[in-house]
């Protein structure tokens, strides 16, 4: 019954600091020195991470920026290899891609659905058989036959989510992209997620929203400074993480004298001004 579909066994991941040899000039001059420097200077992204995700489980990953969450997802997706330790994944991975990834702006909605579906590991036949269902869910009306460069951000997100949600994912990877679309479509996404809950789809959700983690996930992993800080029931992990984060904010708030409300307002305005 409790069959692990993802298992990390003492996984370490470090990257060489490639940017030190950007440029052929630097590489050529002092080649042996550079080679040595390359071996020495490693960036440790994950340090002794072990966990298992069971079939049908909804698993959350939380932690600060740069803690190692995306590296963990990369290892699950199979685009990265561990430096040491073992990563075993059983089943087809469907990452919920960032906005517009795998889409081409000049192609229309239909063509992009097929392109995206095949990129996500399905055959063309499988995608075509689900095409109507996907189009209906995305609610794009006549826009489905227009090039997606004219889509609004929300429409693009709807298209992306619809593709992933309807392609019978076995293991769904979601990297903090839930806050897309309008409130009504977000509700629709959450309903779809709830549907997944009963359908046996395994889900790994990376999120900064503790509300989503608590609502969607059964268990959660908290990564702090490339180590496992805590692993367990999602409510407990979310609570502990929120407390620690609040403490950090309070500490930095004293130094910088920024109240959380102002910080939040600044964040909202950020991209515009």
């Amino acid at each position, binding site marked *: 019954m409790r069959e692990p579909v993802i298992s990390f066994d003492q996984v370490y991941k470090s990257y060489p600091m490639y940017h030190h*040899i950007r440029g*052929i000039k630097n590489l050529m001059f002092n080649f042996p020195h550079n080679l040595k420097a390359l071996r020495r200077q490693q960036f440790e992204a994950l340090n002794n991470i072990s966990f298992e995700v069971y079939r049908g489980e909804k698993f959350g990953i939380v932690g600060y920026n740069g803690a190692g969450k995306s590296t963990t997802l990369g290892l699950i997706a199979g*685009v990265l290899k561990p430096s040491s330790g073992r990563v075993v994944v059983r089943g087809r991975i469907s*990452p919920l891609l960032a906005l517009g990834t*795998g889409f081409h702006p000049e192609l229309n909605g239909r063509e992009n659905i097929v392109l995206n579906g095949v990129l996500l590991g399905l*055959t063309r036949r499988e995608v075509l058989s689900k095409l109507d269902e996907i189009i209906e869910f995305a609610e794009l009306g006549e826009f489905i036959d227009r*090039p997606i460069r004219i889509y609004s951000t929300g429409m693009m997100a709807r298209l992306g989510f619809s593709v992933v949600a309807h392609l019978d994912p076995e293991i769904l990877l979601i990297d903090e992209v839930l806050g897309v679309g309008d409130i009504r479509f977000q509700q629709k996404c959450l309903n779809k997620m709830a549907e997944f809950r009963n359908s046996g789809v395994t889900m790994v959700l990376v999120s900064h929203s503790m509300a989503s983690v608590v609502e969607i996930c059964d268990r959660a992993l908290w990564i702090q400074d490339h180590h496992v800080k805590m692993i367990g029931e999602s409510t407990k992990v979310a609570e502990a993480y929120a407390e620690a984060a609040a403490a950090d904010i309070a500490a930095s708030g004293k130094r910088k004298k920024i109240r959380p409300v102002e910080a939040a307002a600044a964040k909202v305005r950020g991209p515009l001004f």
Partner: protein
Amino acid sequence: MRRGIASNFSQHQLENYRDLLFVLFQKEFKVRYKGKFLGYLWSIASPLSFALVYYIAFSGIMRVAVEGYPLILVSGLFPWQWFQNSVGSAPNLFVGNASLIKKLNFPRNILSLSTILNHMVHFLLSLPVILLFMVIYGKSPTLAWVYGLPLMMAIQLCTVYGLSLVLATLNLFLRDIERLTQIVMTFVFYFTPIIFTADMIPEQYQPLIPANPAAPLMINWRNLFLHGYLDGHYLLISAGYAVAFLALGTVVYRKLSWKFAEVL
């Protein structure tokens, strides 16, 4: 069991890869013509305008007397365009698809293959233009085309595919490759019998022709279009280059493909 990049094959996976090649090819093909009023004309406009420029420069201004120079230019520039576009676009193949490579585990060489095939199809579509020039100059296709065309295409396909794998892969680790490629390709263009014929090369430099991987290919393309035959000696050399580049490309790609997502 370690999960390499696309190591464990299954029937479904193979079908997926086949379809991936198809949709990526289709995407590039559609994008090339979509929203462009003159569609097909644009893909032949570039080599034709180059042909015109060289014709004016060499025949009109410098008065170099070469018989049937426009046909010589066209028969060289079209195959060269396929070669140049494939190799020129190679360094950006993986760098330009960073968002996919960082998230999805699929054989990255499909990106390369779909682009190369696209350039090949555009070459095929430009054959009528070469035929038109041949008719103007009183030539016609010979029986040698039946085997010559597929053979030459296979050799060029392997050559540019191997080269593009090498360049696309290495450019991830050393971004200077992109600039370097542009410069090297300029040299290759002028040192290859494209805007001139092989017998115009001075005697003492003739032995150097096989040292340029593009030269035997282009010489034989022109042999095929102008004289309806293939030179066996140059055919062997270009086939040798094709095998060597294909092997090199495959080795470089295999050795390094697992690191792609790290360096992007």
